[in-house]
């Protein structure tokens, strides 16, 4: 379903970014980058609110003509950004949430790996496979 999945670190540099192999991959990257502003905006809007699952999920960040961008932030300010194709009509909010949840779980697993240094690029195969399943789902 997702055409692009990105994991952004707290310092707003990408830990992991992966797109459906198309020629417009750069466009996806750019979209993810621009969405960071929206994410920050939402994060600041949340303010002192207790961070919970609902607030972790930022929802639709901004839609474009072809794509929709969803955001999700973790407690450690690690952001997940997902770009989905607008033509997917059956993509419901719950599904996006579940996808983010899976992302979060996989990310946690990666974090648990003692060989992973926080801040490194995520090179976990399990993570990759999980993202692949997410990206293939819709196709």
């Amino acid at each position: 379903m997702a055409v692009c999945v990105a994991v952004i670190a707290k310092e707003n540099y990408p830990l992991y970014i992966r797109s459906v192999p198309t020629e417009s991959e750069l466009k996806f990257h750019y979209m993810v980058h621009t969405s960071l502003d929206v994410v920050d905006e939402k994060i600041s809007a949340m303010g002192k609110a207790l961070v919970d699952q609902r607030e972790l999920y930022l929802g639709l960040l901004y839609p474009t003509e072809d794509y929709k961008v969803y955001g999700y932030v973790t407690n450690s300010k690690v952001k997940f950004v997902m770009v989905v194709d607008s033509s997917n009509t059956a993509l419901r909010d719950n599904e996006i949430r579940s996808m983010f949840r899976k992302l979060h779980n996989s990310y946690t697993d990666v974090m648990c790996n003692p060989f992973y240094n926080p801040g490194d690029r995520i090179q976990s195969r399990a993570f990759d496979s999980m993202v692949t399943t997410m990206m293939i789902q819709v196709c």
Partner: protein
Amino acid sequence: MEGLTLSDAEQKYYSDLFSYCDIESTKKVAANGRVLELFRAAQLPNDVVLQIMELCGATRLGYFGRSQFYIALKLVAVAQSGFPLRVESINTVKDLPLPRFVASKNEQESRPATSYSSDSENQGSYSGVIPPPPGRGQVKKGSVSHDTVQARTSTDQQEPASPVVSPQQSPPTSPHTWRKHSRHPSGGNSERSHAGPGPFWSPFGEAQSGSSAGDAVWSGHSPPPPQENWVSFADTPPTSTLLTMHPASVQDQTTVRTVASATTANEIRRQSSSYDDPWKITDEQRQYYVNQFKTIQPDLNGFIPGSSAKEFFTKSKLPILELSHIWELSDFDKDGALTLDEFCAAFHLVVARKNGYDLPEKLPESLMPKLIDLEDSADVGDQPGEVGYSGSPAEAPPSKSPSMPSLNQTWPELNQSSEQWETFSERSSSSQTLTQFDSNIAPADPDTAIVHPVPIRMTPSKIHMQEMELKRTGSDHTNPTSPLLVKTSDLSEENKINSSVKFASANTVDGYSSSDSFTSDPEQIGNNVTRQRSHSGTSPDHTAPPPPPPRPQPSHSRSSSLDMNRTFSVTTGQQQAGVVAHPPAVPPRPQPSQTSGPIVHRPVDADGLMTHTSTSPQQIPEQPNFADFSQFEVFAASNVNEEQDDEAEKHSEVLPVEKPSDPASSLRVAKTDSKIEEKTAASTPANVSKGTTPLAPPPKPVRRRLKSEDELRPDVDEHTQKTGVLAAVLASQPSIPRSVGKDKKAIQASIRRNKETNTVLARLNSELQQQLKDVLEERISLEVQLEQLRPFSHL
């Protein structure tokens, strides 16, 4: 070494072995592959092998020269012979058999080692000596220390150094073991148990090829890598290795030694990663892993935190990425810590990777931490210890299957708190108990199963019950049709028919069956009318609680016919038993007058109230047959339950009681056959002719039988039996129809009633069929809806 005198055979044998081991033809057999394998094949304890190696001087030299090799072989023979290993024993022990390098102990001399796998042991122990080769200078020290260490280890933790040393020792074994295992299909833990009584050379040849392959791999992989690694490992903590060798410094260098030993073990292990079953952990490997685990985490039930595990595995010099992947694979519960099983799996993967195996994408089954059961591949020795692990928190999740998906599902829920681990371990046991309980509970109580009322055979009791029902129904409603109709509507078609038939039969038999004892006497006939009522009213009293109406009375497809039969039988019952015994076709014709009442009554029974009245009069005359009916019932029951042969017998019994039996028989017949209507109708005319009464029964039974077969297939047996009974009874009875006139009227009335009953039943049948169709249509529509909805459910 002392001079070694070898016999010719020994000489030859030893030279062959040396040649085999001396792959490099350097006249110096390094303590690698073949030699170790060979020594393993000797099936000697590790300490013995160490001793041998020490004695032969290989440890000192760091390699097996020819002389050392020969001495070693000799010592092997000595050891295998049971003699104490001493340098002197080489020459002192005379007539020593050739060293046997076989799995089986009782190998012939000429065929030493058949079990190649046993070489692994030797290898293991030997590899303790191996370290020397790569780095001679160090090696020697190492070898010496290794020997001492190994000796110590063999002494089993007598010194603080032993724990440190253990890793050193075990690794040597495991890799070789693995290699052996990998090479041999029998692999696994069969090294020791290898039967291989076969000739040494054949397996040796195989092993040779295998080992050569392995050696090739070994040489390909191991020499450079292991040596490099060895060196590297040694280098990384060069002092540590040396230190490890010095027990004195054990305490200070425990960790380092651990690492060093681990690294060495790693290398060795890597070299010997299994080939056939790359992911199977052998016993020695496992033991080694366990020892390594202990070095990091003394508590086998605990787990190694990620940081220490990282540090440990970083020593393996694998790329971080690969280590990360290994961690991902092995950390089953994703808790950032390694339990023993996870640790073993990780270690195994590291070794495999070191040996060039690509890491799998998913954790192999054999490496998966078992939830409750230990790894089957794991050695028995490890199992007891590991049971705790498997039962440990990591494996706690209730599911026993080590399937990752199931575990993964539970993993996210697991926190990293040790408390949870403990709880998990408890849970695991509880889950075990739960499963046990479930299994206990599983067996359903068959007794609880309530048997649905099935068509009752015309056993006496059942017949009575049916009669009761019929009587009740008949008595309850003055209007023969309505109540019975109502009743029939409540019942299934068949049941209705049966019930009606039962009713009819009950009514008719009421007087008869109401008492198994059949105290009815002819006098009762006079009271038939009242009796009929009373029957209906008293039927319940007499008989046991009437069975549920829907008693599929196979024979009662035509209640009316039964009634007719009853009526006829009643009417004729008085006269002759034969009349009563008339098959459903016509109740005792001979007693139409008498059976008028019962006849009226009977139809009601069968069909409903229609024939009720008709049967009632019939019942009166049947009363005298009550006594007979009892007999008849017995007869009928027995007949029903038995073959017709019995019927004949009973028939004879009934014969004495003609009159009573007639109505009984006729009733029975009526009851048993639902087609009595037709038969009665058919038999009526037959019965009318008294003269032909004797003949009537025969045709009636025949007809009945036919009808029963046609209509009540499931109850054919009953019917046939009943018909047979009835037929027999009827046949036995003399002409029944005595009062033709009465019979005629009764017959006609009964016919009418039967017809009405027939129509009613037919209507009911059609209605039920219609309902059935409707229900089926509904079902189809529902199914269609379900299918339509189903596509959406997957979202």
